[in-house]
């Protein structure tokens, strides 16, 4: 069988336009791949075969009649299961939402449809996107297609791994502290976290509202640029989405890139970074330099506080956001309730205790504590001030450079269960990605090598707010001089 999805997205589109294959053919191929691989990998948590094939047929019919087709040209894709799709279960990997059928579409789902992307199904994630390994999902852990004993990373593990495994050529994830970039790195694909406010969060189940952002996965930068194009832009239903014009990312990739200034940070290579990861990342930066970029040392002195800052701010916002799950309006409601003796509050407590898993409860507890009377100043408000220090470091650095290059994660994909009893160790693995969320800036992870045990390594590039074009150009430059992104798991 033709392995369609080892091809980059622009080749798939050429084939659709020239008639070498149809949208239906690609959707069927996606469904077959899922059927063959999903038992072993557990990436898709639901599949809408009928809906997808019907939409693909409509797109093929329009193309056959010479009518216009949207940017996504009838390509199949998957979306993380924390984005609402009307009438399709949106579980967030939680018992709490196992039977939730959204009565509306997320903004990104509307945009994908308008641009003729064919949504095949929903992808596995850590419960409520809280995690770095896609192990806390009520649907069971996702497995890394490069080595099934290892994690896909998380929380968008299903989205990253489904592209790596060739189930879909494109997918959407969300990134609150690295949840797109880290799994992209662990699975050897390209993943972009856009600037905060670039993509509407309407219909994205909220985790930490000041940090959450939706972004694309693809094999290569061109694919990610195309999907970003399709979903970016202002939406009045998300007041934090910004009215900033959306550039033509794909066209910008074609323009020549000269005088690219790449910042490097000494502190990235301190103790804790796996030596193989460190050397692959340095080699990638050397390739950028050989391709004409100027490498300039910069400092981010407050970056070392980012994990501590994040693990106060994100749980605080989560404890507030998740207060909405009360067993009344939607979501799980406890049956262990005696109307004669128990109060309304007993119903809330029991429903939430049954509906949430261990990591979600841990974060709700942490956030509730950080916001509670007597502790708010010491924890939450202090973290908000350090957050500004982290942002100011970036502002200063981006006066000197266009992008900052470094590792995505201190290690390659860890083994499933490796951090099961030590949440702090898991949190610390987010060290390199978290500060971009705190500062609101974009970051991209691109494959830059393999470890000796055959697991992918990623390079992270970060840029100033709304400089996605420059970021994508820099990442594309690396992909024109390397072919790590073209590698597929055996």
């Amino acid at each position, binding site marked *: 069988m033709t392995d369609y999805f080892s091809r980059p997205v622009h080749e798939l589109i050429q084939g659709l336009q020239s008639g070498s294959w149809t949208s239906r053919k690609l959707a069927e191929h996606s469904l077959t791949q899922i059927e063959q691989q999903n038992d072993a990998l557990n990436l898709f948590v639901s599949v809408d075969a009928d809906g997808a094939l019907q939409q693909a047929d409509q797109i093929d019919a329009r193309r056959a009649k010479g009518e216009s087709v949207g940017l996504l040209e009838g390509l199949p894709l998957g979306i993380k299961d924390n984005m609402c799709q009307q009438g399709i279960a949106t579980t967030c990997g939680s018992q709490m939402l196992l*039977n939730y059928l959204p009565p509306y579409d997320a903004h990104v789902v509307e945009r994908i449809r308008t641009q003729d992307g064919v949504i095949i199904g929903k992808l596995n994630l850590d419960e409520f996107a809280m995690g770095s390994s896609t192990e806390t999902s009520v649907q069971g852990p996702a497995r890394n297609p490069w080595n099934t004993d290892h994690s896909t990373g998380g929380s968008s593990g299903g989205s990253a791994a489904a592209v790596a495994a060739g189930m879909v050529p494109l997918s959407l994830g969300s990134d609150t502290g690295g949840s797109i970039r880290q799994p992209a790195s662990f699975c050897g694909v390209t993943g972009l976290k856009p600037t905060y406010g670039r993509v509407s969060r309407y219909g994205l189940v909220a985790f930490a509202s000041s940090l959450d952002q939706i972004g694309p996965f693809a094999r290569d930068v061109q694919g990610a640029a195309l999907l970003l194009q399709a979903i970016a832009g202002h939406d009045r239903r998300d007041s934090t989405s*910004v009215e900033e014009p959306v550039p033509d990312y794909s066209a910008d990739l074609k323009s020549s890139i000269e005088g690219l200034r790449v910042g490097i940070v000494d502190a990235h290579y301190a103790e804790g970074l796996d030596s193989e990861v460190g050397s692959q990342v340095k080699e990638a930066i050397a390739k950028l330099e050989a391709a004409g970029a100027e490498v300039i040392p910069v400092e981010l002195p407050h970056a070392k506080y980012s994990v501590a800052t994040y693990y106060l701010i994100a749980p605080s916002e989560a404890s507030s956001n998740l207060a909405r799950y009360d067993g009344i309006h*939607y979501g799980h409601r406890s049956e262990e309730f005696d109307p004669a003796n128990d*109060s*309304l509050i007993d119903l809330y*407590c029991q429903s939430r205790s049954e509906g949430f898993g*261990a990591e979600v409860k841990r974060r709700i507890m942490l956030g*509730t504590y950080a916001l*509670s009377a007597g502790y708010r100043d010491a924890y939450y408000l202090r973290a908000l001030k*350090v957050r500004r220090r982290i942002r100011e470091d970036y502002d200063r650095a981006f006066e000197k450079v266009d992008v900052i290059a470094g590792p995505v994660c201190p290690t390659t994909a860890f083994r499933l269960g490796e951090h099961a009893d030590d949440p702090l160790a898991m949190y610390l693995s987010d060290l390199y990605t978290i500060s971009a969320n705190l500062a609101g800036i974009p970051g991209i992870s691109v494959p830059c090598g393999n470890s000796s045990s055959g697991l992918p390594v990623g390079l992270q590039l970060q840029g100033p707010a709304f400089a996605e074009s420059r970021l994508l150009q820099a990442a594309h430059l690396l992909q024109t001089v390397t072919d790590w992104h073209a590698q597929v798991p055996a």
Partner: protein
Amino acid sequence: MDLSKIAKLARLNLSEEELQTYEPQLSGILEYVAVLDEVDIEDVAEMPHAVDLQNVFRSDERAESLERDQALSNAPRTDGQYFQVPRILEQKSS
């Protein structure tokens, strides 16, 4: 850290086993975040959001919203018109 009090504020019933698991984990995290005490935050404004937003207004116009049956469609208990909740006016006598 009084975990039982925090659980109550968070509207969670935690088992004895859960409390025993979380106690050292949460203490460990709080010890770690104490590193923030060494940062100079004198005269730094809080940064609650990634974008420095002003308030966003919209015109006060009627617009379409969910139909009642859609809004109720995911509720665990309804009478077809309203969400059903336990009685709250007559508290238990204990």
